[in-house]
């Protein structure tokens, strides 16, 4: 399981004259769980959005199974289906019911048979305890419920990689645990996960590796024990101190 699935090479992203990502190098292996932590504004979301091409990198390269996703003949649609994303603001399709939210992408993008897609959707909604709500519209659900549906929707595409951008930040504290539980169930099933989070305890428990970002670069990376118990860099120490004090 040490074959690299995503390789970010010398990635740079500039918005206007604002250089958000300076020079990012990150290799994620298949099946690995990587957490990205860092101060607000350090570029974590931007990195994830570049990885699944919601933003176009300014320079550098991103490889998926060794192939550049920026190559002109690269099949982006297929790649996006294989590298799913879970957003902080859920982004469930407001015009569709819970069930349709999970079925429609499978049918539309993967051309799955609708009956098969529905079966798959019901199983996944069951694992996140959202099967009683299949007829609800997104605006009739709580934040935690929405996020669990969003996770089921991403899973339904049978992705190899899932990108999570602060999936619990918009939630009330009592709903966070359900979502984290849904994510824990996915970990170590062979699925590769890249998780941007401010839930330090969760990151420590679930991750194989933790990446600390600061001002558009990766300041430090290592195992959870190494980052949380014995950070080398001063910026890392300062960042964690604030978090651990708060906890």
């Amino acid at each position, binding site marked *: 399981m040490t074959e690299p699935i995503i390789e970010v090479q010398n990635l740079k992203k500039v918005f206007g004259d604002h250089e958000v990502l300076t020079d990012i190098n990150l290799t994620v292996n298949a099946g690995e769980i990587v957490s990205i932590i860092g101060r607000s504004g350090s570029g974590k979301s931007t990195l994830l959005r570049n990885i*699944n091409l*919601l933003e*176009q990198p300014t320079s550098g390269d991103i490889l998926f199974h060794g192939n550049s996703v920026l190559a*002109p003949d690269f099949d*982006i*649609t*297929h*790649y*996006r*289906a294989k590298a*799913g*994303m879970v*957003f902080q*603001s*859920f*982004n*469930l*399709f*407001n*015009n*569709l*019911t819970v069930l349709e939210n999970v079925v*429609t*992408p499978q049918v*539309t*993008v993967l051309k799955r048979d609708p009956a098969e897609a529905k079966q798959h959707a019901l199983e996944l909604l069951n694992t996140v305890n959202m*099967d*009683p*709500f*299949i*007829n*609800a*519209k997104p605006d*009739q659900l709580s934040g935690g419920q929405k996020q669990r549906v*969003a996770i089921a*929707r*991403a899973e339904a*595409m049978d992705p190899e990689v899932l990108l999570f951008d602060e999936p619990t930040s918009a939630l009330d504290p009592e709903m966070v645990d359900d979502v984290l539980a849904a994510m824990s169930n996915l970990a170590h099933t062979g699925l590769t996960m890249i998780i941007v989070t401010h839930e330090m305890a969760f990151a420590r428990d679930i991750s194989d590796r933790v990446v600390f970002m600061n001002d558009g670069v990766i300041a430090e990376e290592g195992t959870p024990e190494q980052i949380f118990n014995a950070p080398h860099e001063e910026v890392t120490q300062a960042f964690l101190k604030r978090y651990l004090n708060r906890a």
Partner: protein
Amino acid sequence: MTHKYWLFMIALLMTLGLAVAPGATTHAADNSTTLKVGMEANNAPFNWTQTSKANGAVKIDGASGYANGYDVQMAKQIAKQIGKRLVVVKMSWNGLQPALTSGKIDAIIAGMSPTPERRKAIDFTSTYYKTKLTIIVRKNSQYAKATSLKDFKGAKITAQLNTYEYDAIDQIQGVEKQSAMDDFSAMRVALTSGVIDGYIGEIPEGITAATDNKALSYINFSQQNGFKVSADESDLAIGVRKGSTLTGGINQELAKISQAKRNRLMKWAVAHLPATSSEDGNWFTTLLKQYGGMLLQGAGMTLLISLVGTVVGFLIGLLAGIIRTIPRPSTAGKRGLRALANWLIAIYIEVFRGTPMIVQAAVVYYGAAQAFGLNMNRTLAALIIVSINTGAYISEIIRGGITAVDAGQFEAAHALGFTHLQTMLKVVLPQAIRNSLPAVTNEFIVNIKDTSVLSVISVSELFFSAETVAGQNFQFFHTYLVVSGMYLIMTFAISRLFRLVEKHMAGPISYNLAENH
């Protein structure tokens, strides 16, 4: 700034296209087996509309009702003599000349005089009726006893738009010239209600008005005290296309019809005007009995045009919405194509929102015929114009609806691997349509009302039918009251219907928990 520039360019291109056009005028119609004659069918006793074919009336082409009058009888006689089948086309006065030059009709027999201005655009046959100008006044007014133009000092006088009668007002010293009006029926109402003191018309109109309405009379001026009018104007002639092969044949036939015969025919026409007084019973049932069918047909046409126009306009709006939201492609070629498409859509919207529909109708219907010899069916032309016009408005409405959809919806769809089209069709447009529905309903209602401007191309929608009815029964208030009611019923029904659709699209307020399995 750049928008203005492009608008200017388009205007220039259109003008050029039309300027080149006369050379391309079609003459094919001249050798056909029919003689298509244009008239208002609302200018008694020369021409009027009646509901039956009594007294040798001729069915009006593409509309309900029959035309009769001096012009119709004259046209029948001429058509018979030159061996063609007569077709009467009813249209507004201002539509006559463009209809002739664009080949929609072959001749104008409408009480038109061959003024020098008109001669520049079309040819005229020899005279088919000679007339004199009069002023129609109220019997009980001081002007009823007038004998000279001098007696009309300080009087409020008007006449029909674009006629020599209107220019003749200037011969009255110290007159209060009123703005021109559209037709005689409107002027009669203005006169009886006291808005004006008199209007200028030809003697036959004087006879008709006085016969019709006992409160009115007309002044028989002597040669030296009346209007000075050139033969070009007092002589009514038949308008034909420049260089038309019909002229010779028609002139030959006209020469055979003596002055005495003409006067007799005019007397006959005045005597056979459709009855305007109603039978007993209330005015409402009388109106419905007599003209209900015509008004319902008009309402049907209005509904058809606005429904098709709104639906097609809506599809245009969706298409524009899909194209305008295409994300920036990576290759330069595709980027250029996208820019071009966006640019064309922007021009389309600006042009069709920025010009009145009545002008668009005239350009499409008459302009296309004149410039390209394209002879469109009137109803088809109406459908096209309303669709394209509505499309321009709805494109902007849908754009607003799309803007209101959260950017996260696009991102989630793209992140799942949806193509742009799939994103739009499955996720964004359903939400955008829901956002836009109230405004689209509004467009539909506006269309119901605005199709009335299509009378310029003689589409027999509700307003056109109403004008015809009012022109026959002179019950302006009652007729338009009924027609207002019909418009209201249509618009009210539509707004209720769409309210239901909105509710349906919003879905149930609550959901049922599914059974656990």
